[in-house]
Structures are given as C-alpha cells and as structure tokens.
C-alpha cells in the first residue's frame, strides 16, 4: 500500500491538518515523522496516496501551511 506523508512546520500545524482533513471526511493519521525524511517537526500527517490531491486541496483551503509531501511504501 502506498501512503503519503505531509511534513508540517509544527505539531500545532499537524493537529490542525488532522482536524480539517477529518472534517472533510479524509482518512488521515498523525505519525512520528519517518526517520528517512528530514522535517522541522517530529509529527507528520499520513494519508492514502490516492487522496493526495484532496488532502492538499483541503489544507490549502484551510490555509494550513505545510512543507513537503512524500510518497512512502509502508
């Protein structure tokens, strides 16, 4: 299964990202940032890779700043 990981500036951003995605009906989860990714924050948002576009749309629509989006095989 292919997952996406959104890297965010801070845990506050991660939690807000999780909240707005849940409100939009998306299946997302907060995870400790995978070690192979270098991030500013120890918490990241995991989602199903098929939903990448929607996730990014929801984050942008809610003005949640995020850094990078990565694809990972779990």
């Amino acid at each position, binding site marked *: 299964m292919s997952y996406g990981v959104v890297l965010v*500036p*801070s*845990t*506050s*951003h*991660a*939690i*807000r990202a999780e*909240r707005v995605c849940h409100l939009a009906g998306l299946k997302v989860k*907060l995870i*400790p*940032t995978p070690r192979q990714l270098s991030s*500013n*924050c*120890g*918490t990241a948002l995991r989602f199903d890779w098929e939903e990448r576009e929607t996730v990014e749309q929801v984050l942008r629509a809610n*003005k*949640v*700043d995020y850094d990078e989006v990565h694809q990972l095989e779990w």
Partner: protein
Amino acid sequence: MIYFDNAATSWPKPPGVTEAMVHFLEKVGANPGRSGHRPSVEAGRIVYDAREAVAELFHAPDPLRIVFGANATEALNLALRGLLRPGDHVVTSSMEHNSVMRPLRALEEQGVSLTVVPCSPQGFLSPPDLEGALRPETKLIVLNHASNVVGSLLPVREAGQIARRHGCLLLVDAAQTAGDYPIDVQTEYIDLLAFTGHKALGGPMGTGGLVIGERVPVDELEPLKRGGTGSRSEHEEQPDFLPDKCEAGTPNAVGLAGLAAGARWVLETGVEHIRAHEVRLTQQLIDGLREIPGVTVYGGLDATRQTAVVSFNVAGLEPSEVGLRLDEEYDIMCRVGLHCAPAAHRTIGTFPTGTVRFGLSYFNTPEEVETALEAVRAIARANK
C-alpha cells in the same frame, strides 16, 4: 459565601474545567508537541482544542494565529512591545487598566508617542474624539473592550472602522468581556484581541492569549521571549511562523486543558444566554444600590451598556471599610480600591479613594444580589 469578585477572577469555574485538568495530569501528562509519541500528540491535541474553542468563540478564522500565554497582561505586552517602535504614535483611552497603561508609559520613555483620549465621567468613549486623536504616524489604537471599574463598553467596532480608514491597527483588551459578551474579531475589525483565561472564559489562572489578525505583520512582531518550541530544532534562530514564533517554552498545558473546557462550556451555554442573565442581575444590583440613601453608584447605570461590574461608594466610609464589613460580617467577597486602573478612577472622579466593586457572573443569582443589597443597606444605615 457570596462571591462577587468575578471581575478579578471567576469562581466557581464551569462544570468540566477541574475534571479536564485532572484528566490531563493523571492520564496525559506529556509535553505537547515536543516528542511525537502518543501522549505528547494527545497533549498537543488538548492545547489545540483550546485554540479551536477560543477561535470559535471570537470568530477568529485561523486557530494557529492564537498565541497562548500566561494572562491578558502578557498578551498585551506582546502586542504593545512587539509592534511599537520609537517614532510610532499610539492612541488609547482614559479608562485603561495598568496592563495597558504601564507598558505604554514605558514605551513612551523609549520614544513612542502616546495620546490618551479622555472618556466621559460615566466611562464612555466618543468615536469622534478617538478619530480626532489620530495622526499620520499612528500605528495602533488600543482600547479596553469594557472597563474593569464601571463595566462601560467602549465602541470597539467604530474604533475598528476608524483604524481601517486611517491605516492603523486596533488592539482590544478583552479581559473583562471574553466569555460573557459577544466578540467577533471579523465584523468588529479587531486586529489584535488580548484575553485572559481565568475570568469569564472559566479557565484557571495562568492562561490567556492574543488573537493575531491577518492585517498584523507577523514578521515585524517581536516576541517577548525566545526559546524551545519543538519545531525547527536544527535552527538556533526562533521560528518565524505562528504560533511558535511567540510561544517559546513549555506551555501551561494543564491550564489550557481547563481553558478548553471553560471555553467549550461558554460555547455550549451560549454567550448571549450568559450575557442576558448577567444583564438582569446587573440592572437589579444597580437599581437596588441607587435606592439606598448615602450610596453613589458609578458608570452609565444601564446594564445593557456595560458588563456585570458595578462600582459604588457609601458616604462617609472608606471603600476598604465597606469591603471588610461585607467580607467579615456578611460573607460577601468584593474588591475595593483602585482595581489596577488609576486612569479609570481619575476619569470617573474616584481617584485616589477608589470604589467598592461587585463583579457578577453567570453563577450568581437574584437572591444573592438581594442579600448583598440588604447588607449594603445595613452598612449605610449604621453609618448615618
């Protein structure tokens, strides 16, 4: 006991507040946003819940533009010291609390120029007077939403419109209104809103914050402190984004758990409902006090134009004497003196003696007001 000192700090707290704090200490415990493990993320969620509840209450569009701190004083210091530079002009009212006046007087020493617009002896500010004080170099208007001495509501919406017209920012000190008077930072054009958690928001002491609107240049906002944030840990410089830029150090997460519960209770109970109850009690108190021979009541005497704060004096008695007798003989708690607001007392003509102040809350009852009126009647009568 009758607790009429809610303007200093509210008591009792709404149901759920203590429980939320106990839950945090016993079941969560971790440092929010620092460690990435589940309890740490859970602690972060609780702090975020507080941000979200407060944002909803004030109609703030972005919870991440709320910076938490110890109280309204810290939030006001952040806004004032963080934004004003030598050469800037700032306008305020003569009804302000010292948490605004003292930082402004210190900034004045450093080259910021300050205009204090006089208010009426009832504690009200006229918008044309405010607008007349503005200059091309005015950067900020800072206003009490309501006076902690007489409860008078200041015209923040008009001030917001004036600020927009003149290209400056509006900072509102909502210490006396957050939680029991409707606040909408968008329709009232409030650029910065300082609130405290331990009054009508129902939270514990040690909580408060600043709502930072979109017109505020975050890159020009100097934080009060710098330090660890759990983010950008590889950098030795402070993060430039909110809230981390202005939230260095481990937050009062247990306090914020309580604040989240308090603010949720306010949302569920309804600010309008809370306000309506307080207006009834306040008018009952004002009308009752005014009928007592020898008692002077200050302010506008109209509960719809003020918060649930009523200041009065008894002829021939020092406020401290009245306060002591209310406490020791009648078990009624109030606050006497100058209420950290010498400017406001000068404005209403009660400096340096001060007043006796009753501060009501949603949890007070008409019966308590009647008992307190009886007590003041007896004290005034005995003194004749």
